[in-house]
């Protein structure tokens, strides 16, 4: 059943040119980060790690959450216009499946974005000539993967917002506000309790220290918890609403 829904979602994404946005934002953040690194090479002397702090700061703190919000708004807007919810909810698929299909589709897109970002990062490193002097940090793969896991929590919540709110822009606006709330919580040490600050922690944006086993455990538990909560809220809204 999930496969059927996914197939349908996939067809809907055709011709939508959403991939353009998916490509532009990471490129942009990598460019800015790289430029910043390039101009401040005198201070940033920790090779790949320094480069990561620069590129991931803009990407992980700001563009990735926004990108997720835009993606989620987009897949929900498809249903909000022309009363398409009528058709989807009258199809012989269960409501949770419809929601999960959207989570998976956005999740897959974002996974591709993460990989793309990794490629950009490596390219930037090579252009800066880092491969000659430093060995490539293996943690990067962990950051990318954990970043993706944390993205899933944001996806679940944004999809819930976007199914509730018909407007395209409002969920994105909320996400911008949430970015700052997340930053605040991270700074005050409550980072594990908010999806956006989990992202900061998971991607090693502000601190490249590797996480302890306990922190990893908390991270995983919180991810699962948030994804479940977000999905539950979204599904509850879909089952309840008289659309």
């Amino acid at each position, binding site marked *: 059943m999930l496969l*059927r*829904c996914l*197939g*349908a979602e*996939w*067809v*809907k994404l*055709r*011709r*939508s040119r959403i991939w353009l946005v998916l490509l532009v934002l990471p490129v942009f953040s990598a460019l800015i980060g790289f430029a910043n690194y390039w101009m401040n090479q005198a201070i940033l002397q920790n090779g790949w790690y320094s480069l990561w702090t620069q590129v991931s700061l803009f990407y992980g703190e700001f563009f990735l959450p926004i990108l997720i919000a835009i993606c989620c708004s987009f897949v929900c807007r*498809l249903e909000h*216009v*022309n*009363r*398409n*919810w*009528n*058709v*989807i*909810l*009258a*199809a*012989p*698929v*269960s409501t949770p499946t419809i929601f999960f299909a959207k989570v998976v589709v956005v999740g897959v897109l974002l996974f591709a974005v993460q990989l793309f970002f990794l490629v950009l990062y490596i390219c930037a490193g090579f252009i800066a000539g880092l491969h000659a002097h430093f060995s490539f940090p293996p943690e990067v793969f962990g950051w990318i993967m954990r970043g993706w896991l944390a993205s899933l929590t944001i996806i679940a919540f944004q999809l819930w917002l976007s199914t509730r709110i018909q407007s395209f822009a409002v969920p994105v606006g909320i996400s911008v506000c949430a970015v700052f709330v997340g930053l605040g919580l991270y700074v005050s040490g409550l980072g594990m309790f908010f999806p956006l600050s989990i992202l900061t922690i998971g991607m090693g944006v502000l601190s490249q220290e590797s996480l302890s086993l306990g922190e990893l455990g908390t991270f995983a538990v919180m991810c699962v918890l948030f994804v479940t909560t977000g999905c539950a809220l979204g599904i509850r809204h879909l089952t*309840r609403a*008289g*659309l």
Partner: protein
Amino acid sequence: MNTVIRTENLSKRYGVVYSVQRVNLAVGEGEVYGFLGPNGAGKSTTLKMLLGLVKPSEGSVSVFGKDFSRNRLEILSQTGSLIEAPSYYGHLTGLENMRVMQRLRDVPDKHVEKALQIVRLEKQKNKKVDQYSLGMKQRLGIAMALLHFPKLVILDEPTNGLDPAGIGEIRELIQSLPHEYGMTVLLSSHLLSEIEQVATSIGIIHGGKLLFQGSMEQLQRNSQPHVWMKTQDNEKARRVLQEMELSPSLQDGFLVMEGMGDREVAQTNRALIMAGIDVYRIEEHKKSLESIFLSLTGKEGSL
């Protein structure tokens, strides 16, 4: 005949206002059931409750003899629907829209071709739906509803936005669905003329209440013909008739009576002549469906 849809005391309340109140629908297998009512009478809400798009406040729905809330997916997999304005993804072509539904319902390719052919959209299937005319979007909606050749088709105002030729075409299509594909059709409209030509059964809803339900013939029988009499002296004739325990009303210089069989007409005629009143005319007026409908829904309920 098997009943395909049965609702019991189906009600939907928004705040304190009932938009649908204690509706008991019964749609038999192989029927084309016309669901008729003025705008805002509760048609769409009722249909949405049949599909689970709106949760009933009270009452229950059973389809194919099964309780809807417990067998939702099974029922939906054998039901096709077009609710309110047609739904579509504007940035995709007609064919791609069909593909979305095809994936959702898991039906073979040939069904897609066939459904597009039925509504005559094969030629425009590669055009973006944003560029379709309203009529074409409506046809696409019908094609989506028929895609999996369901046992039950629910169509909400399917001829909205179609030109007269298109309306005729869709009408023929709807009429052919029961015998050609063994489908049962539930069709809603606010136009009596549209329903009366295709429906075998009819339900009239107004103000959220089901005012009438039955076959087309029953509806016509329901309103007995009136006998209109014109006499030399209507006032005097009226007194004579009142002595016979009839209660005629005066309208436009005629005495109007209800519930008159052949014998009663002959008797009254004889009685009037015996009383020395000449009878000029005796006419039987049958109510048109239009006026039946109006008398059921009240004149203010626009058609």
